[in-house]
């Protein structure tokens, strides 16, 4: 990349970060997030619509198809900002749906945020595989309580057809972050076919969703860690600021290194994909980043609780919200273990 192109990219990423303030104001509290917890649908449809108006749902959709045609660098920056504010609207699942709706009449309403179309691809826990069995139950659909309709991939010969299925008869289970996941058993009789083959598009979209989820987790752990460092600088025990205890200083330094590794992993993966990495190189980059983000987010949020002492174990104090979010997202679109295996299956030898 030339210097000028690089500057443009950096500027575009900065702009996206700034625009996130519309939904996640910097320094804003988590009042809205708290009010939406443990209620149906778990998010605010009006904010979802706003995300459509901002062009976020179609951020990765080519301009020709009505999207913004931006890169993963921008998308990850946005996800990170939203993660820092624990924004509950299902943007990442919606972006996944947008990627497989290209060329169908349903795309416009989704991109506008007027329809919450969620893809019911998953048949078991911890997988990125889409068997597409016509009558197999679909599980773990994020924020399904707010779905307008479901998108159902179905295996037909060597192709993966896409159907629209009514969002009726869903079983909703609440999640630790106050959101929900849905499951249901499809019935093709009431479904409408939208596309003949979304197989390759869905595979790519799932990888992007995994990477974006990693970026969202990164934003969350950065914020939880910042709160913790502030606390270490203000809380006093034994007549000293607790941040002067070397045991705690070293713990904080260790967590900082986890954050640095996660950021490097996410940003380099986004850059690799934006530069056109395909096949094994693409899979390896995504899996490396998601494995790191999953593991680091759990560790960082756990230790943030510990470093706070009793107050960290209250619902009222915000750091716990980040722990609960990490519990829900760490394994979404593949656990650390799944991604480590996937990495080893495709990664080239270590360069010496």
């Amino acid at each position: 990349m030339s210097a000028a192109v690089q500057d443009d990219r950096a500027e575009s990423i900065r702009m996206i970060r700034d625009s996130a303030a519309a939904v996640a104001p910097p320094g804003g509290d988590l009042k809205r997030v708290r009010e939406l917890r443990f209620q149906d649908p778990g998010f605010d449809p009006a904010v979802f619509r706003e995300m459509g108006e901002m062009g976020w749902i179609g951020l990765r959709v080519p301009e020709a198809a009505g999207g913004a045609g931006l890169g993963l660098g921008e998308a990850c920056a946005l996800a990170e900002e939203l993660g820092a504010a624990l924004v509950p609207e299902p943007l990442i699942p919606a972006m996944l749906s947008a990627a497989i709706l290209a060329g169908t009449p349903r795309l416009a309403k989704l991109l506008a945020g007027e329809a919450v179309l969620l893809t019911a691809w998953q048949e078991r826990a911890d997988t990125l595989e889409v068997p597409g069995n016509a009558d197999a139950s679909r599980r773990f659909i994020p924020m399904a309580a707010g779905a307008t309709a479901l998108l159902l991939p179905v295996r037909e010969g060597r192709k993966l057809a896409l159907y629209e299925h009514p969002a009726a008869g869903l079983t909703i289970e609440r999640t630790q972050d106050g959101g929900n996941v849905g499951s249901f058993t499809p019935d093709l009789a009431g479904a409408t076919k939208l596309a003949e083959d979304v197989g390759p598009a869905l595979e790519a979209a799932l990888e992007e969703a995994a990477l974006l989820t990693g970026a969202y987790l990164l934003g969350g752990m950065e914020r939880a860690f910042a709160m913790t460092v502030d606390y270490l600088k203000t809380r006093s025990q034994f007549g000293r600021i607790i941040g002067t205890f070397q045991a705690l200083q070293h713990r904080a330094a260790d967590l900082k290194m986890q954050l640095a590794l996660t950021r490097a992993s996410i940003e380099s993966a986004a850059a690799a994909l934006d530069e056109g990495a395909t096949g094994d190189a693409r899979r390896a980059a995504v899996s490396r980043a998601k494995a790191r983000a999953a593991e680091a987010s759990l560790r960082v949020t756990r230790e943030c609780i510990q470093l706070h002492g009793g107050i960290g174990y209250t619902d009222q104090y915000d750091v716990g919200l980040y722990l609960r979010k990490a519990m829900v997202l760490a394994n979404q679109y593949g656990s650390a273990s799944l991604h480590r295996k996937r990495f080893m299956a495709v990664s080239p030898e270590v360069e010496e």
Partner: protein
Amino acid sequence: MDAIRIPPPAELDSLEDEHFRQVVRAFLRENYPEHLRNPPKRLHWAENREWYMKLAEKGWLCPGWPKEYGGLGLSPAKQIILTEEYERYGVARTNDHGIVMLGPLVIKYGTEAQKTFFLPKILSGEHVWCQGYSEPNAGSDLAALRTEAVLDGDHYVVNGQKIWTTLAMDANWIFLLVRTDKNAKKQEGISFLLVDMKTPGITVRPIINLEMHDEFCETFFDNVRVPKENLVGTLNKGWDMAKALLGFERIFLGSPRQSGYALSRLKLLAERMGLWEDAEFQDRYARLRLEFEDLKALFGTFVEKLKRGESLGPDVSMLKVIQTELFQKITDTMLEISGENAGLLEPMEGNRDLNIGGLYIQARPATIYGGSNEIQRNILSKNVLGLPG
């Protein structure tokens, strides 16, 4: 199937250890309410009163108290067996601060009048106690506590705030560490005071914890008048008394049972996830399992010391650190292997034993209360290793 006869309470302390274990098992099978096994959350008084009263009725409520005060007079080693069997059976913790902490304190330091007044009321379930030590600015540094008690005629007037008071909303009495001399060195101006929670001026405000459960509270004292005779032991010697109670608590916090329970859940979960035979999982599991076995062996050496009548040194802090961190590692592993089930608010498949997220969250405070693990490591490095500073 039960050939085991349950002897009267007064005979329990003289049984052989293994026989005693069998008796405890039989006792639980016979008396413990099935619906209270392995409750997903700490129970409130309204829920576990039934079991508390059953224990009281059978004379089993206070295992560690001497028989003359209505206890079972069990040796520390037998108490550990009892605790192990309770935990194995999934017995819920009761509102046990009166039994475990206040009773022994009154027995050791209380006046005859205090013993005759308070002990029978714990045994009958009339008094339910909570522990008011921590304050917003006195957690790890407990001796910095500021809630003060000022003598005014026949009463102490108490002003201040306690926090993290577990199950204060269920209690009708609270034992407090209060400051009675502001000019003395901080450990030397603290006294031990017993307060009826119905006294005017006390406000209890529940705090929702990370489990979304109202388990601990803030407790406020605004000119609360407490009769002078409710002071336990010597004025300004409350700190030493409270410390004397702690040593014994620490071995209980180091009991491997909690990890044993979690390990059995991890195995069940791995089976449900189709991972039990997986070589990589087997290695992870083996690591945790071996740590559990080694912890058990180490725990055993401390129990042996107790059996020989020796007192425990500061090295008992090791048990608390190893056990609580092992417990956390096990729950971390459960989370890591369960895919999207990790994020569910309710137990997976509606099975209490697969309460993945719940257990993960419950494991967090174990490294905070009872002296945080950082504080335990400070004790180990200074008082065991003799490192300076």
